[in-house]
């Protein structure tokens, strides 16, 4: 058992936002069959959104590109899914939310409160949704304001999810911390695109999108490493984790826990596989607690 911003987790692997998080039943399946330590819902906003036209996600040689466009049924539409997840998943359920302003973030958070999420994750980092996500998350003042606005109306932990598509992620992390965030989550996808050379068309319906999976792991490790140095609050690591080795690496960089997104492509029980792998590693190395891994690389000089 393991505590993260006050939440009790069976293991430090968490389902990342926007992945298998559209329905309550899907979240439950990831929790129960996949054995994730916690699950994050897909990002929910103030109004229903169908997202970008397909193709909305493609597999590359290295990683994945996606431009879902924040499809979501809005907070009223999602409430029953959240309730299902809370009722049946047996793990902490974190509601990922987005909005175009502090007021919208507040509205969505308040709107989902009846579903009793264990925490909120603020998506200020989606790279392919105009006026949302990274549009806010590249601006430290807005990040602080959004964080403070949500903290104001909820009494559960608030995590802020950061974009790597900035010159200095620690400056955005600091803003989240100043706004009262209980943790930051790094990273959302890296801006990217692919073109079909037979036709000349960009492959994604939205033309460009965000890169995830193996390709971005070194980028995520670096962001987590820098945030660990810069912030007091925990950093949750996400980006390209698909093995227990990746998870250990991310924790050594400074992650208090890890989220896993694209790697559910490989298998759903990636969560139990990774947490078992971490346990075996701890035993082999003689560590008494997974917390000893957190930030370890900072001590090796």
């Amino acid at each position, binding site marked *: 058992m393991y505590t993260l911003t006050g939440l009790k987790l069976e293991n430090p692997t968490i389902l990342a936002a926007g992945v298998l998080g559209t329905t309550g039943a899907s979240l439950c399946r990831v929790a129960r069959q996949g054995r994730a330590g916690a699950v994050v819902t897909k990002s929910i906003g103030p109004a229903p959104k169908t997202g970008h036209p397909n193709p909305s996600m493609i597999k590359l040689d290295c990683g994945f590109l996606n431009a879902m466009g924040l499809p979501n049924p809005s907070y009223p539409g999602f409430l029953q*899914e959240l309730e299902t997840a809370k009722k049946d998943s047996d793990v902490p359920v974190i509601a990922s939310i987005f909005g175009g302003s502090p007021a919208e973030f507040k509205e969505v958070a308040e709107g989902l409160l009846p579903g009793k999420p264990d925490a909120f994750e603020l998506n200020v980092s989606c790279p392919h949704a105009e006026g949302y996500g990274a549009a806010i998350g590249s601006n430290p003042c807005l990040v602080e304001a959004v964080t403070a606005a949500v903290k104001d109306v909820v009494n559960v932990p608030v995590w802020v999810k950061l974009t790597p598509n900035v010159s200095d992620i620690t400056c955005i992390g600091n803003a989240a911390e100043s706004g009262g965030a209980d943790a930051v989550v790094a990273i959302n996808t890296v801006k990217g695109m692919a073109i079909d050379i037979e036709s000349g068309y960009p492959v994604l319906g939205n033309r460009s999108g965000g890169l995830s999976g193996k390709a971005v792991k070194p980028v995520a490790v670096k962001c987590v490493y820098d945030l660990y140095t810069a912030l007091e609050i925990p950093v949750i690591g996400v980006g390209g984790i698909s093995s227990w080795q990746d998870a250990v690496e991310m924790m050594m960089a400074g992650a208090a826990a890890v989220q896993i997104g694209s790697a559910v492509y490989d298998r759903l029980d990636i969560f139990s596989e990774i947490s078992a792998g971490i346990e075996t590693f701890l035993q082999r190395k003689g560590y008494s607690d997974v917390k000893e891994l957190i930030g370890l690389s900072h001590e090796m000089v």
Partner: protein
Amino acid sequence: MLPLNATIVKINEESPSVRTFFFDYQFETMKPGQFVMVWVRGVDEIPMGLSSKNSITVQRVGEATSKLFELKEGDSFGLRGPFGVGFSLPSKEEKTLIVAGGVGSAPLAPYAEAASAAGSEMHTVLGARSEGDLIFEERFAEAGNVYISTDDGSKGTKGFVTDVLSRLDLSAYDRIAVCGPEIMMASVFRLLEDRKVLAKSEFSLHRYFKCGIGVCGACCIDRSGLRVCRDGPVFSGVQLLDSELGRYTRDASGRRVKI
């Protein structure tokens, strides 16, 4: 995997609103029931069952399918796949029943052929609104017996496929494979449940797909949380017990929509 470029080599008109597009690429490993994501460039990418190793059979319903209907031989589209879990093939000793409604014939015709090639005795219940809308009647007939139903009675039994089904001795079959409009599949599901033969049935579901590869979660069904694009589209009847089948589906935003 980026979409591969498929060039149309032949177009067959199966009915006024259904066409088969043959392309210059063979999905050699495809299992009947598996689908491809068809990228109509500049418009949308949509799931389509493979109606053979090198064809899709498309009903015109909206923007992307209409755009497909504008394409001619020599034109091309993108294809990713084959994806998902197909129908399980019978062995030689097994007797197979197919229940196909409308364009649901698309994934079932290659299944009928594969099953009959495997030596299974094949019967097909083929339904459509009207005689002209029956898809792949000959392909099913070559594989075995065909029972036809049309809503308007223009051919075969007047009524629904369930009207034919209810008169068959379902205990005689080892496998029952179903694909068609959801309302039809829901009726068939109830009938098979009543007859206690769900355990040997398989249904191919349609849900709104975004990623098509099992990551985004757009296509998950209640209450199992199974992904239609990856754990399906073909599910055993038992997997669908206590499911949303026939009650609601979801739109692109994830909102429930009554069926």
